[in-house]
């Protein structure tokens, strides 16, 4: 995928507080977003600052972005795109400071879960009147849950650029070595437990299954696993936690079983985003839950894995058919101080770069030429005719074996979005996951009851 570098950032919420990167990013944002530096001139020329541009440390992605900017500016000679290069695209601590200082770029990157924070800070411009099928031709085919993530009531505050659901990434090499069929990934928790035991039996520090329990990632995965079981994290009104349920209990019991009865999970826990990918790349881990971009963004390019060693199945569940999956992603919003001309220019840029099959981030032919793997069932941003066109273009340049991902794609998991106050909820559930994975005597009902009380209080406070 084009610009793959910044997709995964949506999931590495608090993983790695890179102060220097944050400070540089903030500084760059502050410098470049001042009204004096950007805006529309009397001649009709518009300058927009846009963050999350891949830095030079990721040369291929950097090159593609700059190519796109050049093409776009040629097509729109009255618009200048001022790129703010940074990775990760968002560091929560500096993002919070940026919102409080009002120094965000004209078009700024956010996770779906940031909407409430941005609105509370009063930093997002209402772009409803600028978004229609003329300005965003494929608007009606954008996945509804992704549009909902940038909409409050009937007001649109941004445009989604990535949308994902999760599945079970498997290590095909270890599956084969353990005598399992890598083309038939497990779909039930019982199958996952059995396969994890078989893989762990290979020895040499190999473990069958891994999961997170730090950096808000434990709660994030627990939410997805509960969704797959058919449970709910928060009630529809957003007023009470509902994960203290048979579904929540089943998920935690399966994990506890693998950690302390089967010993098919490592004694080293308290893991956050970035750790399981390394284990997978080193062929030390059999399975873990993630979105497909973990493979093409992290395991292969950053951790040195072989693209043909991995495959994906749907999220495990007791029934074997996931009732749904946490769906998340990221988007771009517009600074409150943006002029109408800047909002129009920003929308034009996003449509070009992120919302048109065959162009920008979906220029599959270029990705293939640049050596990126093509053909993953992600991001799931479109439906209908646009999705059909997307698939057709992607298939024409595909470089991976689609059969490795067939069971994940065929499952068509229902995207469930993320719970309200998602990061606070995840943060509260990290200790639950950690206790289940580190305490052989963990009292699962008591852990769920305590976390329920804490989340209810968070909801009451934010309500």
């Amino acid at each position, binding site marked *: 995928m084009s610009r793959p570098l910044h997709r995964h950032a949506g999931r590495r919420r608090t993983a790695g*507080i890179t102060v220097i990167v944050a400070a540089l990013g903030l500084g760059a944002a502050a410098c470049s977003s001042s009204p004096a530096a950007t805006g529309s001139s009397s001649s009709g020329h518009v300058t927009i600052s846009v963050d999350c541009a891949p830095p030079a440390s990721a040369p291929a992605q950097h090159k593609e972005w700059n190519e796109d900017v050049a093409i776009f500016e040629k097509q729109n000679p009255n618009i200048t795109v001022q790129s703010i290069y940074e990775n990760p695209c968002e560091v929560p601590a500096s993002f919070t400071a940026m919102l409080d200082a009002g120094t965000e770029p004209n078009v700024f990157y956010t996770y779906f879960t940031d909407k409430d924070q941005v609105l509370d800070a009063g930093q997002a411009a209402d772009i409803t009147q600028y978004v229609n099928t003329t300005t965003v031709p494929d608007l009606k085919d954008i996945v509804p849950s992704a549009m909902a993530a940038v909409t409050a009531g009937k007001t649109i505050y941004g445009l989604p650029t990535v949308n994902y659901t999760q599945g079970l990434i498997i290590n095909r090499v270890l599956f084969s070595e353990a005598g399992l069929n890598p083309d038939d990934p497990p779909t039930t928790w019982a199958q996952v437990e059995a396969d994890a035991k078989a893989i762990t039996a290979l020895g040499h520090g190999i473990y069958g299954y891994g999961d997170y329990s730090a950096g808000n990632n434990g709660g994030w995965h627990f939410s997805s696993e509960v969704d797959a079981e058919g449970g709910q994290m928060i009630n529809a009104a957003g007023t009470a936690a509902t994960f203290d349920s048979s579904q929540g209990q089943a998920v935690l019991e399966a994990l506890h079983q693998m950690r302390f009865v089967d010993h098919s999970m490592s*004694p080293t826990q308290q893991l956050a985003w970035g750790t399981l990918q390394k284990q997978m790349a080193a062929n030390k881990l059999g399975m873990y839950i993630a979105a497909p971009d973990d493979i093409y963004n992290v395991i292969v390019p950053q951790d040195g894995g072989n693209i043909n060693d991995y495959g994906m199945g749907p999220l495990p569940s007791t029934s074997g058919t996931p009732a749904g999956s946490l769906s998340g992603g990221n988007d771009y919003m517009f600074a409150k101080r943006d002029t109408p001309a800047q909002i129009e220019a920003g929308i034009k840029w996003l449509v070009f770069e992120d919302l048109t099959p065959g162009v920008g981030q979906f220029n599959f032919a270029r990705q293939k030429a640049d050596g990126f793997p093509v053909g993953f069932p992600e991001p799931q941003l479109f439906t209908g005719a646009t999705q059909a066109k997307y698939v057709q273009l992607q298939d024409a340049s595909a470089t991976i074996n689609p059969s490795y991902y067939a069971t994940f794609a065929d499952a068509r998991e229902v995207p469930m979005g993320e719970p309200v106050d998602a990061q606070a909820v995840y943060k509260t559930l990290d200790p639950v996951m950690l206790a289940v994975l580190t305490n052989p005597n963990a009292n699962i009902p008591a852990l769920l009851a305590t976390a329920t009380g804490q989340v209810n209080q968070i909801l009451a406070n934010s309500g």
Partner: protein
Amino acid sequence: MAELATLRKAEPLSPARLRAGGRLLPKVRRNASAHGFLIGAVLCFAFFSWYPMCREIVLSFQKTQLGVTSWAGWANYRRIFADPTFWVAWRNTLEFTVLALIIGYAVPFFVAVLLNELRHARGYLRCLVYLPVMLPPTSALLLFAYFYDPTYGLFNDILHTLHLPASQWVQSPGTTPPTMAMISVVIAATWMNMGGATLIYLAALQNIPGELYEAADLDGAGLYRKIRHITIPQTRLILSMLLLLQVVATMQMFVEAFILTNGGAGVNDNTLSVVNLIYQYAFALSGASNYNSASALGVVLMLVLAVFSGGYLWLTRQPER
């Protein structure tokens, strides 16, 4: 007093006073430059210490919603007091402070006494003791994170070699104080920081006149009595000052637990500190994050430390002679 009374008398300017007046200009100049230097420091403190403190207090009584900031009264304080993790964080912080006092305060003192007694390789050993202070804290803590790793860690390797049961160290689930998780954090913190305290103790020890020890030797005093009746009383000022600094520093523990628990708060929140909770309130909860609750907790911590410091200084004040 007599001199002051004389100065207050109105008297005609004598030629000598006039000459003194002539010397006032250089004095003013000298003071002006001193004040000039002072202004720099005052501005630095004003901008980077006093203003943020005042701002923190103001923020703790405000709330921001939909971009509008308004007064919230005591709501932020009520919110943090109602948070069950508030009391967990205070309990953990006190546990860390007490353990750090027992381990982190006493160990450097005895290491300093030992170094002071050595006759050979003193410079080398002092360098060795101070070395960890030169490591960036994050590097030192990542090193300990490896030592504590339950699967691949050095400490468990040693325990295996000695045929002793392995430990989960920072990931230990126990909640009865002192928890293994907190002891692990204190060990890492002590290793990181003891070099500085050891050198300060050593400097104080070397200022004790040797005659006192010689006299004690003549009186037949052993090592324990020499430490109790000479070393401790002679280093009392340094000991009490370091105690104050140590308590204030340990009550603000953050980076140790943050790095060792991968940004979390440990199993069962048993390494969650007050400053860690402030960080969570301010940044880690994303949509539910807000500076106002974080500021309220910061003000509470500041008040606790101010009361402790004031009380401690009052209790340990020197009697007026």
